């Protein structure tokens, strides 16, 4: 076990995947010799050659179109989109193509080898276009998998699973944690399951649910709440699509209360889907409305980003409101 930060864990996962399977390729803007603007692909070109790790021209729709073709051919492309905010020019290739490739062909063809990595999220003075959390846009798209890791250990295991999963996977990396989050990471080749949430901490009064960088926030809020005698069960959803309804529902059946938090705007965010599903599953067990603590229904601001973000205090208040309902 070594102590790695999130970036190092990702780099290690890519390295292992490329060593393990010569059909794995990493490419995107600046990912070649330079190793990516965040250095997630450092040294991979040196180790595996220019044919397997390279810069692309600056065109996201081309990167994903190219990746779709490569995956259909039987390769295992890991394409990087430099910031999740810049994934939208590739939206058609992802939503109309990657997601529907297998279905439309009756499984004659598929792009299951495809993984798309992109740094996402706020809290780093990035403003409108270096802060977005676009997971909900993709969560409405059957055929895709969407995964968000919360720390280095999770990142490595989930990314290895994503690369090897026989379905196209979007892997959103919480860039605020790239260097800020460190932890013990096994050196071995290991995978963590897609589609399964993880109960981080058991509790009895209320369930707190989030993913990615927002896990830190709800854990801090839980600490505040515990001080007031509120026992919180904390769940990391990990996979946004498909998501683990059972684990969440089981928890809420027990606690009777649910607070969900994400950075993306409220309206149409993925917390809405979760709330809608859980109120149906757990209707008779709910002791208070399911509560969502999210970004405002605005683009992402800069100077007032602290005010905008769903921080631990906002989550704490939501916990108290839920308990007092």
């Amino acid at each position, binding site marked *: 076990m070594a102590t790695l930060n999130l970036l190092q864990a990702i780099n290690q996962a890519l390295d292992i995947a490329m060593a393990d399977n010569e059909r794995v390729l990493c490419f995107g803007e600046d990912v070649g010799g330079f190793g990516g603007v965040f250095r997630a692909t450092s040294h991979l070109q040196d180790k595996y050659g220019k*044919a*397997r790790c*390279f810069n*692309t*021209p600056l*065109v996201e*729709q*081309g990167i*994903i*179109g*190219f*990746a*779709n*073709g*490569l*995956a*259909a*051919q*039987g*390769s295992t*492309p890991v394409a990087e989109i430099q910031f999740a905010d810049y994934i939208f*020019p590739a939206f*058609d*290739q992802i939503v*109309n*193509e990657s997601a*529907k490739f*297998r*279905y*439309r*062909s*009756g*499984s*004659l*063809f*598929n792009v*299951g080898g495809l993984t798309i990595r992109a740094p996402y999220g706020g809290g780093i003075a990035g403003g409108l276009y270096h802060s977005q959390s676009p997971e909900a846009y993709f969560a409405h798209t*059957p*055929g895709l*998998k969407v995964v968000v890791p919360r720390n280095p250990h999770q990142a490595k295991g989930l990314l290895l699973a994503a690369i090897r999963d*026989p*379905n196209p996977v979007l892997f959103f990396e919480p860039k605020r944690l790239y260097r800020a989050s460190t932890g013990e990471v096994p050196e071995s080749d290991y995978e963590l399951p897609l*589609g399964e949430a993880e109960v981080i901490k058991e509790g009895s009064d209320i369930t707190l649910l989030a993913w990615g960088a927002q896990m830190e926030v709800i854990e801090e809020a839980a600490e505040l709440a515990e001080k007031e005698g509120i026992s919180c069960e904390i769940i990391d959803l990990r996979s946004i699509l*498909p998501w683990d*309804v*059972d684990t969440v529902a089981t928890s809420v059946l027990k606690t009777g209360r649910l607070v969900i938090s994400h950075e993306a705007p409220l309206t149409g965010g993925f917390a809405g889907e979760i709330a809608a599903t859980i109120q149906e599953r757990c209707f008779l067990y709910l002791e208070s409305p399911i509560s969502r603590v999210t970004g405002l229904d605005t683009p992402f601001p800069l100077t007032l980003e602290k005010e905008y973000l769903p921080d631990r205090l906002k989550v704490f208040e939501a916990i108290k409101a839920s308990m007092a309902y």
Partner: protein
Amino acid sequence: MTRATSSLVHSPHFLEGDEFSIDTFALLKQDGSLYEGATVPDLDRDKALRIYHAMVFTRVLDERMLAAQRQGRLSFYMQCTGEEAAVIGSTAALDDADMIMAQYREQGALAYRGFSCDEFMNQMFGNEHDYGKGRQMPIHYGSAKLHYMTISSPLATQIPQATGYAYGQKLAGDGHCTITYFGEGAASEGDFHAALNMAAVHKVPVIFFCRNNGYAISTPAVEQFAADGVAPRAFGYKMRVIRVDGNDVLAVYQATLEARRLAVEQNQPVLIEAMTYRLAAHSSSDDPSGYRSKKEEEAWREKDPILRLRRWLEDREWWSDDEEKALQERLRREVLETMKVAQKRPAPPLESLITDVYDTPTPQLKEQLAALETHIRRYPEAYPKSAHKSASEHSPQGSSTSSGAVTGQGGY
């Protein structure tokens, strides 16, 4: 109509970008004779007849299926009519294991590769034998064994995919390349630009085959681009390019043969612009009289690519009137009979609604299917295609087959 016009040359000269005016490569005149100075490409009788059969089959299929659509037997259809030489001549120049990533009007390529009439029909009727499991509109064929990627309606998406596919072939080192077909309209999409640029930068064995048929639905080429066709864009990417008479199957064949050599032996992507014309409507939903003249259509009907090849074959005595008659009759019969059978085949099973979304259905999808099954069991007569036979006794006249009287206005 303003179309690219330029003088003709008679050898397949690939432009490097150091000359700018783009000539058109042509070998065969409409009367079936060669242009002076032209030489016949290396094409034996068997291959020539294989090409010709595929062209005639495509024409017959198109005629019959359009008629079937008009009779309400089929929801939608798109004809290749007028462009058979471009599509089939190019496919014939490839290795049969090269990948084809087409737009939608390239059924001829599939016919050339040996897709059976039954396979065509099953797709069009979306029945239980359709490889695509009845999920896509008619003409969205695909065949893994024939290396023909399943058609996708969103235009131009296959072009960068072809670049990626071919990059994979290059790494695999198996000596294959990819050809991607697209219209001059689709070439306006951002995906086109991405694909050609990436192919040039990464030296990918891919052939970009543009069918410039003068129209994108109602939009004439002159409102699609101001330039002399699509070919000059190649210079912007430093890509080899050739323009070819798309109604001249020999020229298309030879140009593609050379392109394939460049792609496979030198990892040089190539752009081919085939100048042709869509003689039929855009699709069964379209009526071209709203945007072009009968006169223009007539002028192009004079350039029928099938007739042109037939004359050349007859001149060589590789083909006769009797053979023609027999072929036409056989194909017509085959199409009609196969259609009848395919149309009666049942719809794909209900389960096919949720398979292939992922490699295996998620728990949610299984739940959704179970709920749907329960629902259909409650109202079997409302879902004749999928209700259990036992339950669907209310609808005796075979309404449980895949396509009833579908009158689609779906596609365009």
